[in-house]
């Protein structure tokens, strides 16, 4: 298989990793919402942790996108 075709296929497979990040972000926000409905007054205090956790999880999805972009456009 010539290298360019292998790169395209690899980039496509690398994008599957973003599904995991999507699940993770959904879990974080879902838990936050479920707890916020039970205890609305305590929810505002945890909002900073929510945003922080979201950014960390999102980063892993973006790492996967980075691998895909490296394969397509850089020498990877």
């Amino acid at each position: 298989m010539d290298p360019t075709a292998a790169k395209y296929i690899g980039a496509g497979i690398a994008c599957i990793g973003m599904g995991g990040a999507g699940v993770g972000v959904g879990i974080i926000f879902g838990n936050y919402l479920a707890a916020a409905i039970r205890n609305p007054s305590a929810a505002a205090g945890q909002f900073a942790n929510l945003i922080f956790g979201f950014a960390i999880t999102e980063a892993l999805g973006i790492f996967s996108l980075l691998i895909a972009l490296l394969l397509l456009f850089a020498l990877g």
Partner: protein
Amino acid sequence: MKFFPLVFSIFMFILVLNVIGIIPYAFTVTSHIIITVAFALLVFVTVVIYGFWRNGLRFLKLFVPSGIPIYILPLVTAIEVMSFFSRPVSHSVRLFANMLAGHITLKVFGGFVVMLGGLGFLGWLGAALPLALTTALTALELLVALLQAYVFAILTCIYLNDAVHPGH
């Protein structure tokens, strides 16, 4: 608390660099890996040097959490060391990839607007859709810019806390 000038400078610098990148035709400095690696290495070297200077060799206690059975201690220590060294990597790549991916998406959707616009009058009507999406993505990009600067500063504080108080 004595690290407040460093953390605040890092936060404001990254915030302003991110937000300037959203202006059309402006250059996004943080979307280059060398810039974010420089920031992350600055924080990492500060953590290591300050950790050793303040705690001596007790700084290495960071890698040996307390309360685990002796027979898995080597494994856990190896894992902790590896995750410590992966910190500057993930710290820098997070900011870099977020900025890069956001701007690539904007360029791709902007390209769609131009491509549809070249198809004549019906294309102009159709090009309103990617134009609206590009506007929404720019708003999201602004949010991500603010968020990533904040996350970078928060992680800097966490890593510095590890230097000041080693051990979980």
